């Protein structure tokens, strides 16, 4: 059985990773959309995104669309693998 991932297992980060994992391989989600899906504050979002980015699990890209700044988030390959490993670990726990 694989090991648990304590970065991903935190409840908000787990929902964040699950939401991002539902995207396609080259799909990104806007910060505001992810925030609305998770129903959390800007501050909370930034803290958890920073943790996931530092671990190399997500990629954050910023650009300007029209005259507005846009922040988009996507899972990295490593993040997708780590999330799937953690979910496998959780499933394993239930099946054991």
């Amino acid at each position, binding site marked *: 059985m694989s090991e648990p991932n304590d970065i991903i*297992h935190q409840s908000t980060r*787990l*929902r964040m990773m*699950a939401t991002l994992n539902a995207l396609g*391989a080259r799909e990104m989600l806007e910060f505001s959309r992810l925030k609305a*899906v998770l129903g959390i504050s800007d501050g909370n979002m930034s803290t958890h995104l920073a943790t996931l980015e530092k671990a190399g699990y997500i990629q954050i890209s910023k650009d300007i669309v029209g005259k507005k700044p846009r922040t988009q988030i996507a899972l990295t390959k490593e993040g997708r693998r780590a999330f799937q490993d953690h979910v496998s670990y*959780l499933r394993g726990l*239930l099946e054991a």
Partner: protein
Amino acid sequence: MNISRQDAAQALASVEIADRRMDTLRAYRDAAPFLQLWGAVWFIANAVTEFWPRQLSAVWLLATVIGSVVTAGIIVLHARRRKRLGLYSAEKGRRIGRGFMMVGITILAYFVSMHLVLGHLDARQSNAFTSLFWAFTYMTAGAWLGARLFLTGAVAVVAIVAGYLYIHEHFALWMAFSAGGSLMLAGFWLRRP
């Protein structure tokens, strides 16, 4: 790190909820342009019918053909977008394409059969009958895809039935604003997270 079986079950449940939510939002986002398109078709065709009733058949035929062509265009654009994002599989694309074609043929057969059974309908009856079919279709799709789509169909059904029963002189105008308008507004609603 120690995770109990109960923690694991809760975590997996939250993953599943997030997954389902994203599926619903994706379905809403995909459905939104179709609703806006057909809302606009209803709006324009009904408005023209209200002011130029003699052009009714030509207007609805033209509006339906244009709507169908644009619908096909949106389906192609969706497929391209999904391909770009790594969400597209050729096998699934072919299956969905066949599905859409069969649905189109089935709906056409339904309307032909119903018109053979019902015989001649006046303009109001024909408008209400056809529009109700589509409004109930949105409700049926919403039962699978999400509450917002179901509610959109329900609002349109109520508007059509209420208009048919209580608005006699300006039914087409009522349909333009209530049914067409509600579909167009619903398109914006569906795009929201």
